[in-house]
């Protein structure tokens, strides 16, 4: 088994010293609620973690707090009675739990405050579902309430066994992904925080679909493992000592709300640096400057070198450069359109293929990617999975990480916004997510959009993550991402991106809610976004625009009595009319009539374009409010095409195929014949291949 000795601490320190210091305002969270000092030792054979922590917690409210709440996440894997297991059935994202030996747990062995033992006051609570068997939330009754602004220091001892990994954290062989692993205090939200009316604990159970939410603070973590293990961790390595075949590595990081680490003797570590001087694409800086109304110099401000580490499985090492390329692009993009990454380093973990349950997961300053050996080889290398997962998981570092929304309650604010930014980054950088044979490409955004239009809305986007009726994925990822894209198109590029950046900057380290996001966008535009927000985020409405009918025919020549009582076109005038007709002198203009319709509860303004045989076209904008629009025109040239939403601005349109109608006289070729020819070819390829094989 390939092994690699950990890098000497001085190398890391010197790299950090050489890097220009990020602006302190960006690096430090304005409110520090927690401060963790943790020591943990891993016994790899038993998969056991023995730890103790000193937790300093400050009461952020103006009220006295009489009890504390803790997350004990690994108790989700304690048995099949936990809420997580009941909801997931022991299966998450395609990975199954090992129900034989794969169980895990976390037990608090001691807890004290000012020398007073708190253990007698410990009890489990299930605030979300009342499940008496769930052990993922621990309540601690205090001997006296914590005063407003007071900081308490708790000493906590604990022991945990890692589950065999299938849901984010755990082990497989000697690989350990250690996330949500220590007794972690919940968030005490003062009245007004996240728009809540009264103060109280926000400490949810571990659900199948829920992720995380915590307070910012400083972490110091000392990890003891056998010497052979390579350790990757959040934060910066500040010291390393060895004794008795073990080593202890100490990591520190300020202003984070989550701390994860990993250990595996097989890791091959690759290092790189994001250097803004060469890794900021000039064309993207210029584009961002134009969109955001800032100078390029202003945008470059705050960027600093970031140390990149890739903890690769030996069989994936050849793919690390794909991770690195995507990582640098993500750092550049987020720095331009949100704000520069404030930390000095970021670590990308590449889990083994049999530990794929750990892949694709976000933590702070560290995330897990994931690949397979086959994805590095033709023809699967045309799928940009590695890039996508890096961009996606690193992106979480902003929405779940730096803005720190509540993933339990508003999963879309992390997953949805992050999917939106992922689509944008993937398609701007790579043009597509998948490149099919013969150069046919599928953009990332469209793969998400198609899931949205193909779905039947049974849930609004905003729901607590455990309350969806089976639509958690759709309503947390693709649908909100597509709706944000729709909001962008309604607002216009400049207005949207300025509001988007303003949102990111305003809510950095500050736990925004859905309302804060909508307010930030609304502040950037005169258009009323509320109906669209209401219909999608709080409702299940859809929309479909279509050309209901389109006809164009010559207007009939005047027939009847004129104002002086003369017969025109009949009677005495009929011979004249026939003569005129014979000469072709009666050419009347065309009377063209078009009906555009809208179904579904979402109302969006759309453009309608009528194109005539002489090549001229006429465009109008319809507000969409009335449900249908009839257009009529008398024009010398015949109408040959009617189209609604020609610029494809309504990305939520459920059926874009009915958005155009071609009439007789259209000069263009038939796309149907072309597609049909390709279709025939495809069928022939299948059949002739069969003939070749039999």
């Amino acid at each position: 088994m390939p092994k690699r000795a950990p890098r000497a601490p001085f190398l890391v320190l010197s790299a950090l010293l050489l890097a220009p210091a990020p602006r302190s305002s960006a690096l430090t969270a304005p409110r520090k609620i927690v401060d963790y000092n943790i020591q943990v030792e891993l016994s790899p054979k038993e998969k056991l973690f023995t730890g103790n922590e000193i937790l300093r917690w400050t009461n952020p409210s103006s009220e006295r707090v009489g009890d504390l709440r803790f997350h004990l996440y690994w108790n989700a894997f304690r048995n099949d009675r936990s809420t997580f297991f009941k909801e997931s059935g022991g299966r998450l994202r395609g990975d199954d739990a090992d129900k034989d030996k794969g169980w895990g747990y976390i037990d608090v062995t001691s807890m004290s405050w000012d020398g007073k033992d708190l253990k007698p006051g410990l009890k489990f609570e299930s605030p979300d579902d009342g499940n008496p068997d769930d052990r993922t939330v621990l309540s601690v009754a205090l001997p006296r309430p914590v005063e407003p602004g007071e900081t308490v220091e708790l000493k906590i001892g604990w022991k945990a066994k890692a589950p065999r990994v299938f849901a984010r954290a755990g082990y497989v062989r000697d690989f350990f992904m250690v996330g949500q692993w220590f007794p972690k205090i919940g968030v005490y939200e003062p009245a007004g925080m996240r728009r809540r009316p009264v103060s109280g604990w926000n400490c949810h159970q571990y659900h199948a679909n829920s992720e995380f939410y915590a307070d910012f603070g400083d972490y110091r973590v000392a990890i003891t493992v056998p010497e052979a293990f390579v350790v990757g961790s959040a934060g910066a390595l500040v010291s390393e000592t060895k004794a008795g075949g073990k080593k202890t590595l100490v990591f520190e990081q300020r202003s984070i709300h989550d701390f994860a680490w990993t250990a595996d003797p097989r890791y091959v570590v690759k290092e790189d640096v994001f250097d803004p001087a060469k890794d900021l694409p000039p064309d993207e800086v210029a584009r961002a400057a134009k969109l955001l109304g800032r100078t390029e110099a202003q945008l470059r401000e705050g960027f600093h070198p970031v140390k990149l580490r890739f903890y690769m499985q030996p069989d994936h090492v050849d793919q690390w450069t794909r991770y690195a390329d995507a990582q640098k692009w993500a750092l550049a993009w987020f720095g331009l359109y949100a704000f520069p990454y404030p930390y000095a380093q970021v670590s990308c973990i590449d889990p083994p293929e049999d530990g794929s349950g750990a892949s694709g997961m976000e933590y702070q300053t560290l995330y897990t990617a994931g690949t397979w050996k086959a994805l590095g080889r033709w023809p699967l290398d045309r799928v940009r999975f590695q890039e996508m997962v890096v961009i996606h998981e690193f992106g979480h570092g902003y929405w779940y990480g730096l803005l720190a929304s509540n993933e339990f309650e508003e999963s879309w604010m992390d997953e949805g916004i992050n999917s939106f930014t992922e689509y944008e980054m993937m398609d701007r950088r790579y043009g597509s997510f998948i490149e099919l044979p013969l150069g046919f490409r599928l953009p990332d955004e469209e793969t998400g959009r198609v899931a949205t239009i193909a779905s039947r809305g049974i849930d609004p986007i905003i729901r607590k993550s455990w309350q969806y009726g089976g639509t958690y994925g759709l309503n947390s990822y693709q649908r909100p991402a597509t709706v944000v894209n729709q909001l962008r198109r309604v607002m216009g590029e400049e207005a949207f991106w300025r509001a988007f950046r303003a949102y990111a900057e305003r809510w950095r380290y500050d736990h925004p809610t859905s309302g804060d996001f909508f307010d930030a966008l609304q502040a950037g535009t005169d258009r009323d976004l509320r109906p669209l927000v209401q219909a999608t985020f709080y409702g299940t409405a859809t929309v479909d625009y279509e050309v209901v009918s389109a006809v164009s025919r010559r207007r009939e020549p005047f027939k009847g009595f004129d104002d002086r009582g003369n017969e025109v076109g009949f009677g005495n005038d009929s011979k004249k009319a026939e003569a005129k007709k014979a000469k072709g002198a009666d050419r009347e203009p065309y009377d063209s009539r078009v009906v555009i319709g809208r179904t579904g509860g979402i109302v969006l303004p759309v453009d309608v374009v009528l194109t005539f045989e002489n090549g001229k076209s006429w465009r109008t904008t319809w507000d969409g409010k009335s449900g249908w629009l009839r257009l009529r025109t008398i024009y010398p040239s015949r109408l040959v095409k009617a189209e609604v939403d020609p610029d494809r601005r309504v990305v939520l349109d459920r059926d874009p195929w009915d958005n155009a109608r071609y009439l007789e006289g259209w000069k263009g070729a038939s796309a149907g014949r072309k597609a049909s020819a390709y279709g025939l070819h495809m069928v022939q390829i299948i059949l002739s291949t069969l003939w070749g094989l039999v």
Partner: protein
Amino acid sequence: METTKSPLAVGLSAALANRRLAGALWAAMTATAVVAWLPLRTVSSALDQSPFRETVLRGWDSWAFLSGIAVKGPELASFGAALAFAVLVSLAVDLFLSMGTIRVLRAGVRRPVLRRLVADGASLFRPALWGFLRYVVGLVLWTGLLAAVPALLLSKLAGRDAPPNGPLATAAFWWAVVAGTVVFLNASARFALARIALARDDAPSARGAFRVSRQRLRGHRASAAGIVLFWLAAGLLVQALFTNLGVGLDPSTNGGVLGLVVLRQLGFVLLAATRVGFWGSFLSWEEGRRPKAAWALPHPAFASASPAATPAPATPAPVTPADGPAGAAAPLDGAGGPSREA
């Protein structure tokens, strides 16, 4: 007269010389393709009344493709069902025509082709169908035994806690690939030879024909597999060439589309010619491995310099029952050869 050409050269000559035969195979394959293509045409014709009409004419429109999957579900489901049906029909047609092809090539008569193709195909269809079932069962069985089971054992040997892509896992993967390919090539060669045995009346049934093919293959498996591999590669090459060429042309006018269709069909005719070449090569190869009879004559298909030398008999030749694999070669039976039942 002994043929001095290699089986591949004979196959190439046969592919080039039997244009009508290739054309008939192409027509049959295209006719079955049309079965599946008709429902697809419903979807594609909708493009002409959609906002994708002009973008598709300009090239690839990913949103037309993806949204089409989402909103044209029932039409695409019909296409899927029709495709599955076409695959089954096409398989039967292939079996049917392969027997006729062998007979036509053996007769060495270039025209009329279609009547012979159909008559001989019909007369040998039933044993060919049994042979196909035998081929499928054999392929599955031998792939399981020689490729899957050893690969599985190697994986088991590595143990549950072995790191992914370790030496044993990699060995298992490559074993499965290589052994699977070898099994496929061998099974294909055997099935091809069994069909030849049926067509040459070396055996009255699929069972007997497979027995004959085993005897023919004994000691010569590599060269037989080489023939299968060569013609597979030739087919792939033709297909890749014409597909790339067609996509590269990307026409945007009706005339251009028509040109593209013609060009592609030319590719499929060439592909059909590779099938003719395949059978020509195998006939030649088999001829070289037949037990020599004092009166045996070279096969007309190989004496390509004098194709008209063996005219088709106006009436079927008298039936000479074959004696099985060890028996002497059956007389050249011509196009109106004996009808057989399995």
